[in-house]
């Protein structure tokens, strides 16, 4: 039995430490530790509830915008405000752009280097790379293009200054793509950098800037909107949005999806590894149409059973702190939630936390007593089990092309595929929502905020509300208690708190702790397999934090990376 610590885990947002026990080349146990705490919930107390979204948005700059949306929804829920349809459309467009941008950045810039060997790409044949590219997509890619990328990377590697590619696990036997596939994906890594910069300009049009767009208000959007408005959303910028949406859809369908399929075909064993809890939850999101029905429905799928969808009720959500660095032992619903940090871990430098009772700044959310996985795979599983008219054929088609069954979804590769599949579906909706906004502008239907509850004098002495968002990484909830016009309590339960949670009072593991168990590790000093499963959840720690501690116990044998 060897205990290994990976700290810092990189290519994620925020600060994560993973400890694993390996025996016989397989992970036997895992501990997930969020190692940073800010106290956002304490800082939010006594603020003006209309300001809360500005603070809450800073929970995360990677999944920017989603906390702003959850916050205004929570306060609107508490105050009984219904936003105008235009505000709903603008919010959908911003959330969809965020999800597409985030999923593409995750695949190419945060996850691909677990599957793609950059150094191998320098030995690729550009002509054969172009042939491979042409066989999976009509996206342009001529041999001389690939030759120039290869030479650029080669010069970079030969310079001896590898920058962000330094000290990677290049040459590890777990890398199974050929040089041409590696070069193709490195080329798309670079193209995706430019693509993401372009698509988030939609946030600048609608939100003034990105990261951290700045036009949310309680009641709608603070957006200048009109066919001839000098700035904001006008006839010209509607056109720009439409072009951006088209470019977003084109890249997702012609680059991301074929590339993910290529990786999935090349790593078939990863459709059987990293299976995890098998229980999935989603709040549902992207309300559309006259009934504001969510495009991705709410629900739970338990035990990987796609024949049954169970309902979701926010009242069943609790957070445990028994194994986290907070005062208290029991589990509390977010309305009654507390954030009283109390680090009782070892004095740094930290050797090991695995034997500690409390070992993370993350709390442990549980639904109806159980741990669940949230995220793209949860959304896809619930949509599929609900018989979603777009999701079912998209999933079946992909599984059919790869030649695997539905059980392959519940895996490390399944999470990656789910992320790409929902990107493709959402890209279509994005185009439609932009068209709706364009029609509203053209038709002088310009209501974008409801100010009836703007004045605090119109508020009740006490109000409670919650706001849910399906963020790129999964189900996000904000809970707010307003008393005498101020925030009396504010709690966030975020996707990575669900997925990266430590054990709860009953000792049950969180989602990726569970998914890591059973993962093979060929080379203890270069545990790329652990990173594969971990990154398939797209960890995002800053907002997840709420730590966990350890008491004295055996130290780690290796600190690796």
């Amino acid at each position: 039995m060897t205990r290994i610590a990976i700290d810092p885990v990189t290519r994620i947002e925020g600060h994560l430490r993973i400890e694993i026990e390996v025996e016989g080349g397989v992970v036997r146990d895992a501990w997930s530790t969020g190692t940073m705490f800010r106290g956002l919930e304490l800082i939010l107390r006594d603020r003006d509830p209309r300001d809360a979204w500005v603070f809450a948005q800073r929970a995360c700059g990677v999944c920017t915008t989603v906390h702003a949306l959850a916050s205004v929804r929570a306060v609107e829920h508490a105050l009984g405000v219904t936003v105008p349809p235009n505000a709903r459309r603008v919010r959908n467009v911003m959330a969809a752009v965020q999800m597409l941008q985030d999923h593409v950045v995750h695949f190419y810039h945060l996850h691909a280097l677990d599957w793609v060997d950059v150094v191998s790409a320098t030995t690729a044949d550009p002509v054969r790379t172009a042939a491979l590219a042409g066989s999976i997509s009509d996206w342009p890619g001529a041999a001389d293009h690939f030759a120039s990328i290869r030479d650029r990377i080669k010069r970079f590697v030969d310079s001896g200054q590898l920058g962000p590619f330094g000290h990677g696990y290049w040459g590890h036997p777990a890398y199974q793509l050929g040089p041409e596939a590696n070069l193709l994906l490195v080329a798309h890594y670079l193209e995706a950098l430019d693509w993401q910069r372009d698509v988030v300009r939609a946030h600048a049009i609608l939100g003034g800037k990105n990261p951290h767009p700045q036009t949310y208000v309680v009641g709608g959007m603070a957006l200048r909107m009109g066919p001839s408005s000098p700035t904001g959303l006008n006839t010209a910028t509607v056109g720009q949005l439409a072009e951006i949406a088209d470019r977003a859809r084109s890249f997702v369908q012609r680059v991301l999806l074929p590339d993910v399929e290529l990786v999935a075909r090349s790593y078939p064993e990863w459709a059987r590894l990293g299976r995890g809890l098998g229980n999935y939850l989603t709040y549902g999101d992207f309300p559309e149409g006259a009934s504001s029905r969510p495009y991705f429905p709410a629900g739970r799928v338990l035990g990987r059973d796609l024949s049954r969808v169970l309902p979701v009720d926010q009242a069943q959500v609790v957070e445990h702190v028994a194994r986290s660095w907070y005062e208290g032992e029991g589990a509390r619903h977010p309305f009654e939630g507390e954030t009283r940090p109390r680090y009782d871990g070892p004095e740094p430098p930290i050797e090991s936390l695995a034997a500690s009772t409390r070992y993370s700044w993350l709390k442990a959310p549980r639904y109806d007593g159980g741990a669940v996985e949230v995220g793209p795979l949860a959304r896809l599983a619930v949509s599929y089990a609900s018989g979603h008219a777009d999701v079912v054929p998209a999933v079946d088609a992909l599984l059919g092309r790869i030649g695997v069954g539905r059980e392959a979804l519940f895996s490390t590769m399944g999470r990656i595929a789910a992320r790409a599949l929902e990107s493709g579906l959402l890209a279509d909706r994005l185009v439609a929502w932009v068209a709706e906004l364009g029609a509203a502008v053209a038709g002088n239907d310009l209501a974008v905020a409801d100010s009836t509850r703007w004045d605090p004098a119109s508020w009740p002495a006490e109000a409670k509300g919650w706001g849910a968002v399906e963020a790129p990484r999964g189900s996000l909830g904000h809970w707010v208690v307003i008393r005498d016009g101020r925030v009396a309590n504010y709690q966030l339960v975020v996707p990575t708190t669900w997925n990266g949670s430590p054990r709860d009072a009953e000792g049950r593991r969180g989602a990726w702790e569970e998914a890591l168990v059973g993962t093979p590790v060929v080379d203890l000093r270069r545990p790329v397999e652990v990173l594969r499963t971990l990154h398939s959840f797209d960890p995002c720690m800053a907002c997840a934090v709420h730590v966990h501690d350890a008491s004295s116990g055996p130290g780690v044998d290796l600190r690796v990376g």
Partner: protein
Amino acid sequence: MGVDPDAGLASSLVARGISRRRFLAYCGSVTATLALPARYATRVALALQDAPRLAVVWLNGQDCAGNTEALLRGARPTVSQVILDLLSLDYHEVLMAAAGADAERARDETVTRFAKRYVAVVEGSVPLAQGGIHCLVGGRPFVDVVREVGDSAAFTIAVGSCAFDGGLPGAAGGPTGAVGVSGLVRGPVVNLPGCPVNPENLTATIVHYLTFGEPPATDAQGRPLFAYGDTVHEHCESLPHYRARRFVREWGDQGHRAGWCLYNMGCRGPSTPGNCSAIRFNEGTSWPVAAGHGCVGCTTPRFWDAMSPFYTRGGPRPLEPPEALPVPDPRPRPAAPQIPAESPTTTTAGAPVPGPPAVASPDDGGGGPAVPIAAVVAGGAVAITAAVIRRRRQLEAEDVRDTEPEETP
């Protein structure tokens, strides 16, 4: 203007497929942007042309990665050019391939091998309470890492508001004793506050160092004058409405749609330093006031407490009523970019700037840069300068019309 680079530079430019005239025009403009005498253009040209990739160690503390994401939005140069051509981003937890102890090895190698020659960038605040246990990296308190990396750097850039003064984690109610970087490290610190920073200001700061071997001139708060020398208000497109007393009264009202001033909706622009209104965000696409929401004052000290509540004028630090505020002088100030009309390098100012395409096509997106990185960087500076100048001229023109206040609806 006396630029006469040696034959080596000229042939190098030709070899890289860029005309000598065009490259020198860029260099002249970056010189102007930095408010330096024209004779420095040669130095800019030589420095940018010959600079090896600058080693950078980017640390993340109590952060949200918003400044990292901002870096990914950089347009001039683009992020792929920054990562592959301008910088050697030897340590950046969000982007680097290596993990764990291997990642720390990469960081330690740069700190040793490039001592006093690398730039440290710190994103996020530094918690000091309880010995720093609220942010541990590699099992160690973040403050120890900041000191280790910052002390040996040529200089440190505190990027974003949290690294500036503790930012959000340092706001009232925050239990972690969060502070900014200034005062923690021995070397010079340049503060680039903003939530997050505008990436064009980050790259401009780095280009200044590459060219002159020192960070740009700053104000008393350590903020570079080229970016924080004016207020947001001075270049705001709603300034004529402000002067005419045309104020938005309610979200979505007629005035809001027509671009009127957001002062009464809480805008903090009049007391907020920054070039947001001049250079805007995301390739110059927009900025908050243009989109429709007031400035929240994110470049000012302790802004989370000092500027909030954001929608009322009677916050903890009430601003003067508009009548009492001085009307800004729209003429360029000494510290601001100056483009002398007779300079041969100003032909691009105020006009579309020749440069790389805003969005790379699939056929050239990842290939070698169409123009040298130096030219791209300098091209960005031209665009910033041009935006400022254009705005100032526009405001001067509008001044004539905005003498009679109108009724608000």
